[in-house]
């Protein structure tokens, strides 16, 4: 009767088997494409991380020379340690370090130490005035080329004219190595020094403090405003054209390129309101405008996740709408809001472009003292270092990136922990 029933198919025949093989092969191909796509993505992530680690670990170590220094009481007075003749103290120490050298040869040898060595001696005396009149070994960072030599970046086997250091310089350094004066230490300066022109002295302290201030401002502005807006839109707002406009507006704001926020900050905060350039306050304001949509969206999602039965129960026993929100809904939504806030702040921490436009990429050699003093931030400091020509800054840039990623991992880890520990499923 039916044509389908009449048609006979030879499912086990040669033609059908060939068709089946073709179809299964297509299936396998798609699976292989998918696996290789994921493989490529993970491989790229792996390459990214390994390059950073392999160039960055050198930024965490620093070659130092232990220099025998005599703080001659004639040259420095323990009562006013800032006024001593440290230049002379240093050159005597260098003479002592390289006996038998003099004149230009000695001066060249002195370049093994960092340029700022005399200021390091000064701060050593400033910290401990009892040093005056004694002879002690002071660990002075080696200057960039020698640091590179010690870390093996400069190949000693290359012909002399293709190296940054000639044979004489290398033999001087090797002599120090034989004397046991060369040490490789953890580079605490990376965390406690501010920026410097010399890679061996440059550190992230200023950038970390600047980022902290900017994030503080961002947090103080974007969280109350974001939560307030989200509660209103989710719990109180009538559904009309006006609230719809606000909603569309927030969704689109979340996708505006970050550099446009930088332009806004430059034109409005710096241009119209005359706020200072490079200040963490302005950086924080711009970042808070960028974080605001994220926090609103996340907060609304976690308010939505609180079941209506909670609200109805509270209303049923006579709570006002505000009391329902304040006493019941918000506390229950808090873990989600916190998680979203931390993720939003982590995004703000990594944001670079808007900070460039408001001048947070200045060369500043001391940590900012407040919200209005000039400062850099972690990502802009990385950008500055990435642009610096000295070879040593490559390792420092990678090290800075690893520090930034470390902060991001910690923040996201806290967010994930909070989500898993506190979030309820209803």
């Amino acid at each position, binding site marked *: 009767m039916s044509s389908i029933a009449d048609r006979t198919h030879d499912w086990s025949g040669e033609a059908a088997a060939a068709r089946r093989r073709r*179809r*299964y092969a*297509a*299936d396998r191909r*798609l*699976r292989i*494409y*998918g696996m290789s*796509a*994921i493989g490529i*993505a*993970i491989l*790229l*992530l792996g*390459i*990214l991380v390994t*390059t*950073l680690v392999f160039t960055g670990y050198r930024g965490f170590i620093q070659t130092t020379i232990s220099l025998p220094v005599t703080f001659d009481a004639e040259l420095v007075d323990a009562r006013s340690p800032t006024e001593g003749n440290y230049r002379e103290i240093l050159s005597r120490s260098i003479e002592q370090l390289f006996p038998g050298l003099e004149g230009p040869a000695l001066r060249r040898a002195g370049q093994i130490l960092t340029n700022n060595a005399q200021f390091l001696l000064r701060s050593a005396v400033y910290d401990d005035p009892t040093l005056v009149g004694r002879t002690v070994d002071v660990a002075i960072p080696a200057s960039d080329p020698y640091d590179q030599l010690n870390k093996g970046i400069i190949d000693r086997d290359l012909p002399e004219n293709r190296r940054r250091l000639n044979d004489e310089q290398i033999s001087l350094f090797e002599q120090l190595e034989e004397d046991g004066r060369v040490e490789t230490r953890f580079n605490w300066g990376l965390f406690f020094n501010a920026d410097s022109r010399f890679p061996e002295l440059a550190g992230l302290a200023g950038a970390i403090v600047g980022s902290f201030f900017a994030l503080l401002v961002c947090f103080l502005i974007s969280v109350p405003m974001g939560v*307030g*807006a989200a509660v*209103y*839109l989710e719990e109180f707002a009538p559904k009309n054209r006006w609230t719809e406009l*606000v909603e569309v*507006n927030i969704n*689109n*704001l979340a*996708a*505006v*390129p*970050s*550099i*446009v*926020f930088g*332009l*806004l900050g*430059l*034109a409005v905060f710096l*241009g*119209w*309101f*005359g706020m200072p350039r490079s200040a963490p306050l302005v950086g924080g304001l711009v970042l808070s405008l960028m974080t*605001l*949509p994220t926090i*609103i969206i996340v907060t609304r999602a976690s308010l939505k996740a609180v079941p209506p039965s909670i609200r109805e129960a509270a209303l049923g026993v006579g709570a*006002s709408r*505000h009391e329902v929100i304040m006493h019941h809904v918000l506390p229950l939504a808090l873990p989600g809001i916190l998680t979203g806030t931390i993720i939003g702040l*982590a995004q703000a*921490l990594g944001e*670079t*472009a808007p900070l*460039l*436009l408001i001048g947070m990429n200045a060369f500043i050699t001391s940590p900012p003292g407040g919200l209005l003093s000039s400062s850099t931030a972690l*990502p802009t400091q*990385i*950008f500055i270092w*990435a642009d610096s020509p000295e070879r040593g800054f490559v390792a420092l*840039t990678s090290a800075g*990136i690893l520090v930034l990623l470390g902060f*991001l991992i910690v923040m*996201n880890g806290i967010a994930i922990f909070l989500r898993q520990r506190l979030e309820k499923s209803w």
Partner: protein
Amino acid sequence: MAGYAFLAIAVLSIVAYFIGQSAGRRFQAQVGREVHSLPVYHGAFVAVWVGIPALILVLLWLLLQGMVINQLLLASLPDDMTNGVSSARLSLLLSEIHNVAAGRIFTEPSPAIVEAAERYAVWERIARWAMLVVGLSAAIVALFVARSRLAPRFRARNGFELFVSGLMIACSVAAILVTIGIVASLVFEAMRFFAIVPPTEFFFGLNWEPQMPIRADQVAGAGAFGAIPIFVGTLLIAFIAMLVATPIGLFAAIYLVEYADSRVRNVVKPLLEILAGIPTVVYGFFAVLTVAPAVREAGSAMGIAVSPNSALAAGGVMGIMILPFISSLSDDALKAVPRAMRDGALALGATRAETMMQVLLPAALPGIVGGILLAASRAIGETMIVVMAAGLMATLTLNPLDSVTTVTVQIVTLLIGDTEFDSPKTLAAFALGLVLFVVTLSLNIVALKIVQRYRESYE
């Protein structure tokens, strides 16, 4: 001074809270359950009226004080110093006055400047004290007014809640204010740019050389602000990025939805999310450090000359950055296809590949296209990767091995360092920013519309 003002306001509102609360307690003791609101609400009512208006007043004062004083200073300078002078010169004068007032004297200032600096210091001091006085008196007046309204039958809770509602509405309006601020600042500065450089030249010109010193009579003839090479460069890099990201992201999503078991998904998805969470400055450094040299070496091994900051390297790294967006948005779109369609296809004997390619993918296509548009808007607006890895020279080319520049690169290079709001060079950045904003916004709106309509069709 601002810190003291905030501190004083905070202390006052805490005091106000306790005053209100104890008033509420007294009412309770006097009339028992007849009191409308709990003591807490009496306290909170007084506290918000004391704290918030004063706080807003002080913030506005801080925001406007600098502007007002600067205007007064300029008005007080002798006429021959300010008459008919460009605004760049005026801002220089102002900063000189500020420097002299702060004791940072580099060259011997003119007597008029010294006088102005003295006036500035005095006005600054007056303004600060005035702010403290105004803020505190506002708080104290509010304290008395609010306290006098408290009574056993006073609806303190409703008053407090009304206030909080008002604050929340203000917060939602702030989100709109941000958009208005963006549009206003971009349009305002771009209008000033187009008053100097005609829009036709900007949108159709083929020559972009903003770094040239430009005199008023030179602008029209030089044709230095033709943005076509920049737009082409932006699209080229974004296209390369999409070329890298779309296939990888889409196939990854297909695998995760259809083939991977939950164990693989639990490992791979967070890894892709890491890719999305890495700051763009890191990708930029990666492009400069690893990818660009690798591309260059590969090129020279094949005997092709590759520019050190080729569009290929910048676009490729940008592709890695947007890959996770495409994969997660496609993943969502594929998952949103009703399960019945998938089960139906499988039940008819289709292989999983056939189900995917002939049922799920066509059904999810609008969502996927929306996701790709969102990713494209991100690629166009991305800044740090191209600032670090793409070129600065605006060359009109479609060759991915050449160096091209993008809108965002030009904005950053034009605005880095000290900026004058007068030169067409600075204003050009705002014109570019306006174009960028309009393009990314339209892409987003279209994409969100597509995604939304598609979602509705299955709900």
